[in-house]
């Protein structure tokens, strides 16, 4: 069977014929195009190409070893375009016939060398491959956008699930989570339970707008009087809880509670009125318990708070020392 140059070129636009002395004596049109004006014909194969696999074949003496195995090679000169390929011996010792392709780096090669449809054989899947690369990246872009959106929505939903919408403070769920996590980790904390006094009167005489305003103002005071890492939660209508990591000195805790109380008792302006409220506060610290249990601590702080109410409101009661001895901690 004999195949003319034109037929060979049509079937294999990336072919190369190399004579036994290593000189290139024929090349497909696409390979010629890649050389961008540099001649191929008449040059030594090893001047133009560098063998990557098999390694160590650098001169004509090794040429015959290239037949029949999978080859990796690249252009010696810039842009060092890489190829995969194979070579077969030509009849009557006329040398080798190489057929090359771009392999996985084909998108780069097509862009770099400005290749078009007609630079590839009709059976070549390069165009389909390029189509797939573009289609997949378009789909990936959409998925990335969706992922980003869902992630933001999730973060926001989580935040909202732990936030009291009126005051922007944490809610009961957030407080529960923090107390449980601290107890499990054995991290000490102080607990302050606050219930507003005379809040109902504000609501009844000035309306819910005034009540909401007072709650927001109390939230602001609580945030100002605590540290960044403290948890300030609104856990009921006019009930607040503070969880203060590492703050287990009862006197210090009382000091903070007293300061909060005096600020809450300052009149709060609303639409030309001065809203006057106060608060009953119960405190306890986790180090008073052999095994701190969040429910029990909350219950104890609550009992201290009701003792404050019974004693006339507007005061801070410390658990257990300020309570009658029969209710003290075990």
């Amino acid at each position, binding site marked *: 069977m004999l195949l003319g140059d034109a037929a060979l070129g049509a079937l294999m636009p990336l072919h190369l014929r190399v004579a036994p002395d290593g000189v290139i004596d024929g090349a497909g049109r696409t390979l010629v195009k890649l050389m961008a004006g540099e001649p191929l014909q008449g040059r030594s194969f090893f001047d133009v190409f560098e063998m990557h696999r098999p390694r160590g074949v650098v001169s004509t003496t090794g040429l015959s070893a290239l037949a029949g195995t999978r080859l990796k090679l690249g252009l010696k000169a810039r842009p060092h375009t890489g190829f995969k390929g194979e070579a077969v011996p030509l009849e009557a010792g006329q040398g080798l016939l190489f057929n090359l392709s771009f392999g996985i780096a084909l998108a780069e090669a097509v*862009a770099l060398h400005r290749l078009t449809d007609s630079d590839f054989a009709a059976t070549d899947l390069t165009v389909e491959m390029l189509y*797939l690369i*573009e289609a997949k990246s378009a789909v990936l872009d959409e998925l990335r956008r969706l992922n980003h959106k869902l992630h933001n929505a999730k973060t926001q939903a989580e935040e909202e699930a732990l936030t009291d919408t009126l005051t922007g403070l944490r809610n009961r769920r957030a407080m529960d989570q923090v107390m449980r996590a601290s107890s499990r980790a054995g991290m000490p904390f102080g607990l302050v339970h606050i219930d507003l006094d005379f809040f109902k009167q504000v609501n009844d005489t000035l309306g819910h707008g005034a009540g909401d305003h007072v709650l927001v103002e109390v939230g602001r005071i609580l945030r100002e009087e605590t540290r960044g890492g403290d948890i300030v939660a609104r856990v009921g209508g006019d009930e607040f809880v503070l969880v203060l990591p590492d703050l287990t000195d009862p006197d210090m805790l009382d000091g903070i509670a007293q300061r909060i109380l005096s600020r809450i008792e300052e009149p709060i302006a609303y639409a030309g009125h001065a809203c006057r409220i106060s608060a009953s506060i119960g405190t306890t610290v986790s180090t008073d318990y052999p095994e701190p249990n969040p429910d029990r601590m909350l219950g104890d702080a609550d009992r201290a708070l009701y003792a404050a109410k019974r004693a006339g409101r507007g005061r801070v009661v410390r658990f257990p020392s300020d309570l009658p001895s029969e209710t003290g901690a075990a």
Partner: protein
Amino acid sequence: MHGLINRAIQCFLRDSFGAEAWQRIAAAAEVPAEGFEPMMQYDDAVTHRLLDAAAAQLHRTRESLLEDLGTYLVSHPDRESLRRLLRFGGVDFVEFLHSIDDLPGRVRLAVPDLDLPQILVEERAEGRFTLSLHTPQPGFGQVLAGILRAMADDYGALVFLEHAGTCDGAELIEIDLFDQSFAAGRRFDLAAGAH
């Protein structure tokens, strides 16, 4: 219906008639104003509600809107990636037409759950083509007609093209190709981003 289809309708309405028109149509169709997620599936009824609302609000027929949607998908600058994907179908308009039967398969390679109607291409005589679409969802034919009209421009081909109604449950598109290279057409580089 696949979210990509609903999303395409949404972008077409917004880009062609303005954000305010889209809001009105979305409200009338009872779909969220922020629209559709392209990678999710929606109930078919949503798409039909959307098209009916668009036709009513814009005083247009569904058919003419769908054909404009097809043209928009190929010719709007923001939809360049879709035009490129279609141009991979062939080096000239005739080769592109013959690649149309592969279109649903090509689409599935990229988005496996996007089912497009099966399309048959028949060259009845030199330069005269009939495309038939087999789908239980009427309307794809009008979109395809719009796409083909815009692609003919893209290739620089001069064609006469019309949606020829429905026959045996298939939508038909008739194409007469007068001149394959009537105008220069738009440039297409195999490599994305090349100039």
